[in-house]
């Protein structure tokens, strides 16, 4: 028998939905700066039917530009909410908050979404997912040790090399991306200090598209991780290596990253959302 969610859990669930909407709004504002067909948040706020305009805008970005893995879940959340004057008023508050956040590039680099998500962890609703938030100081310490302890890591050029091979960092339970974000910051700093010729944008593109891998069984957490990484340097990227993985499915075949213990292949059926570009990929475990 299914257990009924408590009022507190419902509150957390809807707050999390709101967080995903804010997150997607911030992202769409950044995309709007480079694409005149995408309305800015100021333009959206002028609309009489805000919900519909936001949905149209995100749909356009997904179809014509990209960012489907990041925007689709927020679009689905919004579509599942019934239109009403109350929702319209509340959405306006979210848009205004997103507007203030998006106007500070410096602010966006501080894992805001991860920190607020930590406060909203969904209690009973995610009890069986064993969610645990990695604190920012702990993530920073781990990342500093990983990047700065003596090793063959070389970040002078792009891609950074480890043992002569292009560097890849994998977090098998990445959640909202706190640890991957800390690793990003350390690699960025190391490149700035050691490189003869700075290639900051290329480094960002490599890290997002190839270098930083993340898996989790919570789709919305992966969505937040993708945004957190993208916002370090909001330039266009073509893909990411963040995947929401299946868990359960009746016969217990899917156990998220634990499946890599039996095979290092990331097969299409393991992935809950997003696509595996170029077929099956191999993951070093």
């Amino acid at each position: 028998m299914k257990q009924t969610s408590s009022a507190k859990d419902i509150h957390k669930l809807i707050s999390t939905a709101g967080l995903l909407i804010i997150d997607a709004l911030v992202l769409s504002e950044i995309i709007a700066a480079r694409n005149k067909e995408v309305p800015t948040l100021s333009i959206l706020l002028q609309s009489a039917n805000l919900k519909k305009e936001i949905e149209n805008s995100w749909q356009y970005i997904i179809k014509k530009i990209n960012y489907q893995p990041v925007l689709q879940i927020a679009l689905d959340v919004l579509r599942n909410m019934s239109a009403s004057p109350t929702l319209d008023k509340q959405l306006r508050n979210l848009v205004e908050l997103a507007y203030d956040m998006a106007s500070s590039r410096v602010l966006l680099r501080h894992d805001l979404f991860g920190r607020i998500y930590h406060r909203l962890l969904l209690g009973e609703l995610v009890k069986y997912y064993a969610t645990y938030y990695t604190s920012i100081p702990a993530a920073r310490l781990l990342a500093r040790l990983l990047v700065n302890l003596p090793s063959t890591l070389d970040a002078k050029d792009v891609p950074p090399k480890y043992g002569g091979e292009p560097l890849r960092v994998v977090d098998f339970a990445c959640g909202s991306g706190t640890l991957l974000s800390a690793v990003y910051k350390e690699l960025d700093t190391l490149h700035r200090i050691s490189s003869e010729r700075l290639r900051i944008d290329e480094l960002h593109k490599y890290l997002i598209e190839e270098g930083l891998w993340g898996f989790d069984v919570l789709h919305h957490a992966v969505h937040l991780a993708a945004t957190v990484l993208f916002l370090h340097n909001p330039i266009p990227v073509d893909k990411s290596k963040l995947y929401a993985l299946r868990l359960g499915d009746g016969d217990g075949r899917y156990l998220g990253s634990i499946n890599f213990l039996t095979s290092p292949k990331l097969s299409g059926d393991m992935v809950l959302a997003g696509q595996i570009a170029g077929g099956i990929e191999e993951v070093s475990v």
Partner: protein
Amino acid sequence: MLAELLADKGLRALGEVILRKSRGRPEPDVLIDLNGVRIVIEGKKPGMWNELVRQCEERLDDNVCDLCVMVEYVNFEKLLNERLFPDQSYIKKFLLKGVYNIGFMSYIARVGLDRWLGLPVKYEKYENVGFDDLLAYLMTAYNKVVGEDVIGPVIAEMKKVLDEFAKNTAPMVNVERLKETLELREREDETDE
């Protein structure tokens, strides 16, 4: 040279210092990594304060550093007048006895906290200070950067807006459908126990 002196005379007491000198524009003059906090020092001759401010804003917005130090060499002319080709030891002595107008701008000033706090956050400026004061102010600015929970007010405001959103929209949200959208599934108990 100034960065090396700052490192030797005090910064190393705070932790590991890595210096990276400019290899040409648009890079900063000097980048110091102090325990993971990136500090840029930008120096100019007198009369170029506004250019220093603009440059520091750019460094912080471009994520080059967490703290930018603006240094205006007040008695720069004296250096030029006394020696046509000053050697390293002369420059070192000159810097240690130098007079500076200095400013510290951290990422905190660029976060736009005035939106959240209602108070303007400005950079700090000190005029006609000596080398020891420059070092002391720099160490204070570093401690402020690592010690302040600058994001706290933003998180509090986000929490407030999200609480209100959840409270007001709860009656019109289909919880089961939202759980499905977020792909959250609860375990189904096999018995009623």
